[in-house]
């Protein structure tokens, strides 16, 4: 059996069998699902029970303005404040709204009396009602009809349509492109750091446990390094794949239990729609059509293909550098000085990606998506907006050349570094190692 393959197998199996890997694999999607499901679940819970609200309005401005809804029933009362408080305590009312006589003719104060803590939604709905009424009256006193204001408010709907070379026109959804670009680039960023650090720690572990000398008397350092890098890449891909599958699984279970309406209320569903839905709204036919149109507008083939290439290529490029860092130091505390320059391009990429989404075809975006150190992050931001195929091909070719170069460089450092102990290594020293025959 090929030795690199044997090493790959060990690196993969020991990590996949670790309890921490198994826990992370199952906990990750579960936490994600919790984040999405719990708010919806809580919302369905809070529906139960209608709350009675007493309104003591000393101004008489708001009679009939508080409208009953499925949660709250408003009763206008005219009693002594203290006796009402007593009633709230007794439980006759859940909440008492007290609007006192205004000091300067305009009521700007209100008080909520509760036996328990007042709910935020009630508070904000009462504030809105009071505010609207006060504003309306102010407008009226200045001679403006509030209805005029209302009718002048307009919702503008802008459709973005992408013109293609073959004359086709397709609707594009900028918000969706932004979300897709940012999500995929952040995923790549995390994958590179998480699993690159794993490679580095693996190398340091072999060095500190001194197994390294036994290993290099059996295999070539390059085989050891490549076995480790590819083995850990497979660990990462396995974890990623399991996350996708598990998340989908939890989603469909959730959909089965709560029905498709609940799914459309999930925050992710809303993001996909580019915030065009209010969270309380129920998906109707028009919206479902829109969802289909959005999905149709995404070029999944290109996105998935490039995601995989940049995901793996970016990882390989950085993992080799991380392996070299691990080989040059004796313990993890010493990695800092080398980690910084290696991580800066990636961090810069992720920071700049927020600007790139505003100008995905600018020259900064173009160059950063060509430089192999930043291209995995930046190109993924650009791709959903549509990038000429030759640019993608060039960038990928440069990425492949980049990782061949870093691997070659790292192998030179690695092979000397792994057998070097107790030496504070600086850049001058590394340069010397690279030049060794």
């Amino acid at each position, binding site marked *: 059996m090929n030795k690199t393959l044997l090493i790959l197998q*060990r690196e993969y199996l*020991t990590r996949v069998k670790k309890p921490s890997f198994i826990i992370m694999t199952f906990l990750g999607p579960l936490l994600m699902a919790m984040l999405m499901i719990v708010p919806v679940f809580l919302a369905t819970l809070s529906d139960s029970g209608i709350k009675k609200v007493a309104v003591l309005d000393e101004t008489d401005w708001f009679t009939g303005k508080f409208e009953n809804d499925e949660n709250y029933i408003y009763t206008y009362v005219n009693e002594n404040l203290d006796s009402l408080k007593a009633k709230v305590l007794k439980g006759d009312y859940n909440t008492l709204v007290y609007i006192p006589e205004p000091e300067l003719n305009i009521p700007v104060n209100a008080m909520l009396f509760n036996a328990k803590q007042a709910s935020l939604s009630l508070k904000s709905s009462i504030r809105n009602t009071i505010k609207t009424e006060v504003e309306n009256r102010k407008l009226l006193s200045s001679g403006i009809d509030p209805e005029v204001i209302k009718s002048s408010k307009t919702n503008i709907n802008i459709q973005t349509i992408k013109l293609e070379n073959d004359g086709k026109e397709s609707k594009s959804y900028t918000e969706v492109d932004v979300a897709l670009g940012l999500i995929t680039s952040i995923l790549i960023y995390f994958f590179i750091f998480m699993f690159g650090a794993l490679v580095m720690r693996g190398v340091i572990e072999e060095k500190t446990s*001194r197994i390294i000398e*036994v290993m*290099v008397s059996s295999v070539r350092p390059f085989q050891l390094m490549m076995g480790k890098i590819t083995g850990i890449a497979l660990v990462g891909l396995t974890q990623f794949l399991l996350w996708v599958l598990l998340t989908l699984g939890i989603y469909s279970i959730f959909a089965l239990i709560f029905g498709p309406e609940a799914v459309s209320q999930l925050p992710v569903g809303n993001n996909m729609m580019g915030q065009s839905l209010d969270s309380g709204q129920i998906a109707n036919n028009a919206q479902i059509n829109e969802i289909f149109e959005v999905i149709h507008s995404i070029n999944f083939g290109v996105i998935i293909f490039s995601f995989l290439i940049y995901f793996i290529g970016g990882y390989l490029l950085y993992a080799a550098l991380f392996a070299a860092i691990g080989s040059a130091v004796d313990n993890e505390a010493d990695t800092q000085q080398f980690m910084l320059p290696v991580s800066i391009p990636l961090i810069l990429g992720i920071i700049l990606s927020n600007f790139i989404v505003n100008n995905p075809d600018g020259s900064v975006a173009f160059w950063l998506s060509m430089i192999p150190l930043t291209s995995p992050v930046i190109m993924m931001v650009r791709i959903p907006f549509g990038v000429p195929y030759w640019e993608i091909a060039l960038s990928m070719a440069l990425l492949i050349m980049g990782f061949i170069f870093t691997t070659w460089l790292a192998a030179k450092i690695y092979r000397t570094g792994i057998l070097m102990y107790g030496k504070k290594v600086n850049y001058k020293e590394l340069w010397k190692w690279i030049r060794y*025959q």
Partner: protein
Amino acid sequence: MQFIQIQEVTKAYANHLALNKVSLSVPKQTIYGLLGPNGAGKTSLIRIINQITAPDSGQVFIDGELLHAKHIAHIGYLPEERGLYKKMKVGEQALYLAQLKGVDKKVAEKRLKLWFERFEIMGWWNRKVEELSKGMQQKIQFVVTVIHEPKLLIFDEPFSGFDPINVNILKEEILRLRQEGATIIFSTHNMSSVEELCDNIALINNGNKILEGSVRDIRQQYRTNTFEVHLSNVSSFFDEALPNGFHLISKTASGSDEMNVLIQCDPHVKANDLLSFLLPFGQIVSYKELLPSMHDIFIQQIESQNIKISI
């Protein structure tokens, strides 16, 4: 028949010469001691044989063939700094390392079971390395070193970290391995084990070979012609009467009529003359030549090079 031939191997690091045109030859099926103070270049040489590093110039031949990647499978190396994957189970790890040396998994498993039974460590198979004591880990490491039945074994300080009982077990195993055909290179500071085990030695200092040969020849070569005689029933005093060419070095009386004397002879005189001279003075209990120990030769050689050593 020479199994290993090292010809004029030179290796320089950034700021020092680790090996300076070192040539050695290790006869087949012998134990060869590679001696020298710390930093002499032993590890550099061992790493070159193991193909961990390449020499700047010079050649290494194994069994008549120029050193090649395929030879890795025939070399077993026990480095001075022992190391195993701490989190890995003992059996799994031994199998892995054996496979990396090119042994088929099933064959490796069979051999490992034999070794584990011989060392009575079968119960450790499923335990993690970190749960074992240092001595236990050393045993595993030894097994891993020999599991692919290499023709050449390189042991760097094999006895460090072992208790005396285990040192003996290990010595027996090393001798048995030689018996079975292996050639063994043995790097150590422990001179008594050199005298006990090694057939040949080389002494390296500052990257230069300063001495090579069989242990017996070297000790003969550095003999000082000193004899130790133990006498009982000593009847009379004799030191003034020593014949020409003999010099009394020391004389210690033990008990009422027993005596221990050290006498040095000049090179041209015969040792038997001393014996016949001594016969009338009492009963001779023992009579032997004091050959210098490897320890003494080692220190004398290194110090004569005016090198500070730290063993």
